[in-house]
């Protein structure tokens, strides 16, 4: 057929210029060569997913012109592609639709062009059912037409017994009512309406079809009724409420159910009338499923070569579920797991509370005393400070009283900024004349890539979850410039690595003199971090390093560490006895004890955490006097 675009006098003029521009733009955007020379592929230039055009609309509009091979809808695009089996069909469609078809609810006429190919996206129908969601089984012809009729007629939708009109469908419950607000059932309130006896054949039928391994006696049934255009939003059946598997009978008509995994990968699954869908394992816990609210489903043609539309009809489904005996779930699909999300949420709240009460508030109380115990900076840390050059920026995250300021090499002029969560400690820094601000290490108030160096000494072990500790390191990575380096110190759980007792332990046995200060210290001054030079103010009241190293007390949430001993737990409270003269309010004769929260690190724990963060490289891991340290570099 001889065809020249310009000869078609029915097409309005402005459509030509629209087409010309669209061919330029879409070719550039999609990297697909477009033109007006007929091919079997068509690009719809002025409508797509981002303008509300759906796959089914495309099939609806184009299928009168011949069998459709593919429809490719691109996310966030204002254009889309489709392909016929033959160029002739494509040309017919072009001549009938280009500049003539009026989009519904719009003034716009359809602009088309031909494409050399369609973008490569996998046709989900091509992979089914073998590569469907793992654990999903669709047993076709599970019930007979007679059984279907019996089950459908069991229910009256005009006067439902235990039913409800939801926004998009009608439901009735048996055994237990499913509560849509909380997505659970009230175990204490079984319904008078049990699962109908007419469903009893289910067990034997399952066995006959080779599923004898399941001794599945459901005690909850939800019946859904969908009219054309209705659906159910993507969801996962509440993990902690229902056992594995979930069974669902489809009746009166076929439908397409969309499954989606964590990455957003979508697989449409065809559920024929009178089939039983078994959702087990991963498909039950790790995928959402839903039915789009629409009038047609896109399905494979019978010859499996093309796509076609299936009009929706009334559909009734029976979903059988078994309540868990205990409201819990330990699946490995946390992103869809109500139980684990609740736990994570609780953990997060607990962590915030713990850090507030056992870190931040304590440092405010003990700050001046604490500051007195921190004099001598540690050699390795000073050495790190000396590697920076004039005009570089060094951040000290959790700077305390600012004792690592001013350790640069001779004749080097750095810009140092300290950050601490304690206002008292920050005040001490300004008294020293150093630049400081109050802030939290989880949300550094700096723009990205501004620091040549970051120090973070004895800070991250005060964060109460792995996620929060990781986030603190990630923040450090963010503010480092490319090639910038950070030094991080945390307390090690093992205080006697390499048969070399850390300073922290040695201090327990040493000097019993210095009684003036002795009463103030039952303990930890975090000297393992402060440095070996500060052993003058020793605790010696507690037991030797080998006896019990922690105790539980009724009122505290974590075991309390006995100072100057090895750590028995990873998450502990370390007592701090406040020296009399530093007490905020005098409570005569009573020594006040504060408890600070610590997470003490296992060997490699800090390193492994740092490796999780993509932009950084661990240059060195060291065990340094009871601490783990890492030297990091942000990749250039």
């Amino acid at each position, binding site marked *: 057929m001889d065809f020249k675009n310009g000869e078609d006098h029915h097409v309005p003029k402005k459509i030509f210029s629209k087409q010309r521009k669209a061919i330029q733009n879409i070719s550039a955007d999609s990297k697909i060569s477009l033109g007006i020379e007929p091919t079997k592929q068509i690009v719809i230039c002025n409508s797509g997913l981002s303008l509300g055009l759906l796959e089914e609309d495309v099939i609806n509009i184009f299928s009168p012109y011949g069998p459709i091979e593919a429809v490719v809808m691109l996310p966030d695009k204002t254009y889309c592609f489709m392909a016929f089996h033959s160029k002739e069909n494509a040309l017919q469609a072009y001549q009938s639709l280009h500049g003539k078809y009026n989009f519904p609810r719009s003034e716009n006429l359809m602009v088309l062009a031909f494409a050399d190919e369609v973008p490569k996206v996998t046709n989900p129908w091509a992979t089914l059912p073998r590569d469907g969601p793992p654990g999903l089984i669709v047993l076709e012809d599970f019930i007979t037409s007679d059984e279907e009729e019996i089950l459908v007629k069991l229910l009256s939708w005009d006067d439902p017994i235990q039913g409800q009109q939801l926004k998009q469908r009608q439901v009735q419950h048996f055994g237990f009512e*499913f509560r*849509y607000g909380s*997505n659970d059932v009230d175990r204490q309130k079984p319904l008078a309406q049990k699962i109908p006896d007419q469903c009893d054949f289910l067990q034997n039928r399952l066995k006959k079809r080779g599923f004898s391994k399941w001794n599945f006696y459901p005690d909850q049934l939800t019946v859904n009724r969908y009219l054309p255009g209705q659906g*159910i*939003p*993507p*969801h*996962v*059946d*509440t993990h902690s409420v229902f056992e594995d598997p979930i069974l669902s009978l489809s009746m009166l008509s076929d439908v397409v159910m969309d499954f989606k995994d964590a990455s957003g990968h979508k697989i449409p699954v065809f559920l024929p009338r009178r089939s039983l869908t078994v959702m087990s394992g991963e498909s039950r816990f790790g995928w*959402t499923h839903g039915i789009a609210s629409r009038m047609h489903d896109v399905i494979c043609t019978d010859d499996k070569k093309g796509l076609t539309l299936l009009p929706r009809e009334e559909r009734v489904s029976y979903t059988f579920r078994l309540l868990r005996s205990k409201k819990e779930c330990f699946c490995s699909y946390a992103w*869809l*797991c*109500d139980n684990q*999300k*609740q736990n994570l*949420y*609780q953990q*997060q*709240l607990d962590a*915030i509370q713990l850090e507030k009460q056992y870190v931040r508030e304590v440092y405010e109380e003990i700050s001046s005393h604490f500051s007195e115990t921190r004099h001598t900076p540690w050699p390795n840390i000073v050495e790190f400070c000396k590697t920076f*050059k*004039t*005009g*570089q*920026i060094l951040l000290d995250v959790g700077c305390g009283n600012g004792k690592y300021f001013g350790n640069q090499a001779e004749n080097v*002029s750095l*810009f140092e*900024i300290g*950050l601490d*969560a304690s*206002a008292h400690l*920050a*005040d001490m820094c*300004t008294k020293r004349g150093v*630049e*400081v*601000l*109050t*802030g*939290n290490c*989880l*949300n*550094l*108030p*700096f*723009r990205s890539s*501004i620091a040549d160096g970051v120090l973070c000494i004895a800070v991250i072990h005060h964060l109460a979850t792995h996620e929060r500790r990781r986030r603190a390191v990630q923040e450090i990575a963010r503010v480092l*410039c490319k090639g910038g380096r950070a030094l991080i110190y945390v307390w090690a759980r093992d205080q006697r690595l390499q048969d070399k007792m850390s300073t922290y332990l040695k201090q327990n046995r040493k000097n019993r003199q210095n009684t003036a200060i002795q009463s103030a210290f039952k303990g930890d001054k975090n000297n393992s971090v402060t440095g070996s030079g500060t052993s003058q103010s020793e605790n010696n009241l507690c037991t030797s390093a080998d006896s019990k190293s922690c105790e539980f007390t009724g009122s505290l949430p974590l075991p309390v560490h006995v100072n100057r001993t090895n750590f028995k737990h990873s998450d502990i409270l370390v007592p701090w006895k406040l020296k009399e003269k530093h007490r905020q309010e005098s409570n005569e004769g009573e020594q006040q004890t504060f408890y600070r929260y610590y997470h003490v690190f296992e060997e490699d724990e800090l390193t492994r955490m740092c490796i999780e963060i993509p932009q950084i490289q661990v240059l060195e891991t060291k065990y340094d006097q009871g601490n783990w340290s890492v030297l990091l570099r942000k990749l250039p």
Partner: protein
Amino acid sequence: MKLLTHNVLSSKCLKGVSVGYPLRLNATDIKVVDVDYNSEFVSRMIPKINYSALYDAAQSIGHLNGLPDAVVDDFESNEDFLKAVHHVLLEVDIVSGDLECPESGRKFPITRGIPNMLVNENEVNEINGSNGYNN
């Protein structure tokens, strides 16, 4: 707080804030201090800082002291320019006032020379316990 510090601060961590830079500076008490001048320090600092943010901040508190509105071409050898930058970067100290997020308007007070950049957990991330699905 020195204007060099102001130059690196950002409120991007706040929920719903996409850039959070530069923070609007409002100073109620400013002191000018003497800091040893080091030309090498200043000329190396210039490529790191956001010069227009520095200029705007100095101007907003009336402490430009002859700072030009753009980096001069020969900045590495232009002593007058380096000294002007040195003064604005290091010698102008904000004792009190506040910093304001340009997008959300959240204010961070500066007291006794210390900006309080502490934020509550609920200002920075969604704490969400529900699973968002229903069946």
